[in-house]
């Protein structure tokens, strides 16, 4: 999603009012219930939230200068910076060591990279197609990407061919290196 993103893609920036801040926070919690415990730490009451509207209908939300989540459609998507602070809250898949460098180059993730010995998918019933997932890697502590399931995790296991996850955001992409001011 951010492959070619740059500062030129920013259309407008505006401050988010505190009433909207509350709505955003409860929306995040409703999408990721485990965040309830830490939401006030992630986004403290007096934080400065900015909405950055970009090309392609992408909207970034920065909290005290750090982009913590974004959206293209209705759903809020966490940035890796947010995930790293509290990784437990998100549906997660794991790729094997061999897939890491492809993920970091921005490629979609192929099914075999998600089903091999070093990979991990949630147990049945698993996750539905289109779920936003955090991508971890074999023997690594931190997440390296955020993606969207192109098929359900059960189908990934069964079919084990083709693209399983669409790349949204990864370490080193323009969103990762993006800084405001």
């Amino acid at each position, binding site marked *: 999603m951010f492959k070619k993103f740059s500062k030129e893609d920013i259309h407008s920036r505006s401050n988010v009012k505190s009433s909207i801040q509350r709505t955003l926070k409860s929306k995040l919690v409703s999408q990721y219930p485990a965040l309830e415990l830490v939401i006030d730490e992630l986004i403290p009451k007096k934080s400065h939230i900015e909405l950055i509207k970009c090309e392609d209908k992408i909207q970034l939300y920065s909290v005290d200068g750090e982009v913590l989540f974004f959206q293209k459609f209705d759903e809020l998507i966490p940035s890796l910076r947010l995930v*790293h*602070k509290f990784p437990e809250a998100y549906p997660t898949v794991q790729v094997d*060591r*061999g897939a890491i*460098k492809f993920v970091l180059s921005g490629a979609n993730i192929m099914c075999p990279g998600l089903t091999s010995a*070093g990979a991990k998918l949630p147990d049945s019933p698993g996750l539905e197609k289109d779920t936003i997932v955090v991508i971890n890697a074999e023997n690594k*502590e931190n997440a390296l990407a955020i993606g969207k399931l192109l098929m359900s995790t059960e189908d990934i296991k069964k079919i084990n061919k083709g693209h399983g996850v669409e790349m949204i955001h990864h370490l080193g992409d323009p969103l990762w290196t993006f800084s405001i001011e």
Partner: protein
Amino acid sequence: MSGLKEVIYCEVCSYPPDYCEFSGKLKRCKKWLNETHPDLYAKLYGDSGDDEVTNLGKKLVESSIGEERENKLEADLLKLQKREENKEQRELAKKLSSKVIIKREARTKRKFIVAIQGLEVFEIDMKKLAKTFASKFATGCSVSKNAEKKEEIVIQGDVIESVESYIQQLLAEKGLQDVKVEVIDTKKKKKPTTNSTESK
């Protein structure tokens, strides 16, 4: 107590340190990590204090992918590192061989502007610097494109000396004190207006 995880990011490659091996900058990453977070360094690369800075360490290479694929991967990562190093060297050489031009031009008989060209090579945020100058000299300062379509900072006012020392200092902070800073002062010439190529 905080329920949040404090994540360390590598100052060299920006990744969490467990991914430094994929950044192509591993040599410098390891040096940085060893100096700033020796405990984490030991955890990732083993505490044998190995001198082989490119060595990945046992811990990292133990995985499901098998020896053959691991060897291939490590060869690829070494290639990546080589590429990255060459790129860094080229960029440094480019920086060192370019120069900054600071120009004083007369606007009217008593009004001057100072234009700074050639900063784009040095990863200096021109807009931010323009703001800094504007408040430092309490004057107008903007970034505009010159005749060669390159961005330059234009400061209203006769502030060439202060600008020069500020730029020198800025370059020195980046370890680029050897970069040439050329000062062109049209004030000293008899017919200052003929030197001005700009028309605005």
